[in-house]
């Protein structure tokens, strides 16, 4: 089994609608029932991010996200799947449920 990160992408800081939330709940329950769930969560808006550089002496804090980009990650799933074909299906289901695009990326095995 391998683990994959499914990042949910959005170009604006809108919360999931009630309808989307309901669909996400159904999707999550299915993941759990099928033993494919590892973790999931939504993120606060990019404006709430702080970049921290602790590599050299006193940590340096920078307000805001690391990269200004048109799209940001607003939530994610971590799923478990035997191979990419299964993961792609789950990603398609996740994308449909939250009504946004997702980026699927494997963890280092």
């Amino acid at each position: 089994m391998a683990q994959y990160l499914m990042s949910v992408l959005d170009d604006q800081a809108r919360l999931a609608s009630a309808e989307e939330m309901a669909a996400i709940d159904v999707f999550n329950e299915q993941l759990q029932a099928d033993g494919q769930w590892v973790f999931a969560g939504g993120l606060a808006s990019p404006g709430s991010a702080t970049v921290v550089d602790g590599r050299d002496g006193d940590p340096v804090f920078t307000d805001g996200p690391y990269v200004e980009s048109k799209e940001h990650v607003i939530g994610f799933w971590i799923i478990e799947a035997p191979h990419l074909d299964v993961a792609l299906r789950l990603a398609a289901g996740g994308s449909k449920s939250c009504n946004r695009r997702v980026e699927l990326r494997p963890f280092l095995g």
Partner: protein
Amino acid sequence: MTDVDEVISRIHREEWARVVATLARRFGDLDIAEDMAAEAFATAVERWPVEGVPPSPGAWLTTTAHRRAIDRLRREVRREEKHKEALMLSDTPEPLGAIDDDRLRLVFTCCHPALAMEVRIALTLRLVGGLTVPEIARAFLVQETAMGRRITRAKAKIKAARIPFGVPFREDLPARLTGVLAVLYLIFNEGYLASGPGTEAVRGDLTAEAIRLTRLVRVLMPADGEVAGLLALMLLTEARRAARVSASGELVTLVEQDRGAWDRELIAEGHALVRARLASGRAPGRYQILAAINAVHTDARDARDTDWSQVVALYDQLVSLDPSPIVRLNRAIAVAELDGPEVALAEVDGLPLEGYHAFHAARAALLRRLGRSEESRAAYDRAIGLAGNTAETAYLIRRRDQLAGRAPHSP
């Protein structure tokens, strides 16, 4: 070339995919499969001329490659003591679909939709077709090192993302097969209308390779109509290859081709495939319809005998499956033969194909027939500016310069 050399290159063509595919399944690693298959063939080149060709060359190659792979893995295991990782291999997914052949798994892996199209093409030619990296680089006018990197990155993604070595889920099979056929058709088309300046107009090596790979897929999936349709389409197109470029290196249009130079054997094979599909009574997909259109053309001994109403009817069927502007452009070109250039031009104008050379070439030809020379000339200019094939450019320039009115000039 000596006899043994010829035997080796024939066996390379016949056995490469099987050796790579068998190793890929056994070891779950395309790198190992590719490297060890190449080593086994190199060993054959060294030893067969001296020791003779073994009675079962395919089995000899697979066994040799297999032994080498085990040796390499043992060395790696000893070196890194990562026993499990070297043998992670056993957890490759089992076949999920109905078809069980390692070569088919290999085809589906190389054409996986999570890989970019140019990556799928390169991987398929390397791992299934057995072309070398320099050969593929030349075919697509890419630097050898860049092509090597492209293939290495693809194999790394397959490993890291765990693209399975297997045939797709049954529900995914139609879409995945369409993806495989698209890769094969792109390889064929790159050969048939080579896009680079300074390359040959028609690259027989690429068209032959595409046909060979499609034949292989057909052996693996004999019941699929679209596989048969694509093979028929390629054969009926390839049959006209010799007549397609003139002695002076100019593209010759279908209507003007010397039909005596067409390859009758390929045409017969293509026609038989098309007839078998028609007899099946099942609704044809796009490749089957395209093959049927080509069957109508190759059925006519003289261009004037072409059954254009049949061609237009087939294009109508294609438009209902795929109403894309390019299909509608091709339909309009057939309509010109049936209903005249004016009707056709009305259909061509307004298609959103401003950046496509064939759109302007078609307009130029229709405007010429309507006697609208100045507009025709402008359309030829646009087509010449956009065309990438040397023979096609030469043809378009001659046709433009034949237009009445202004004196001929070079581009």
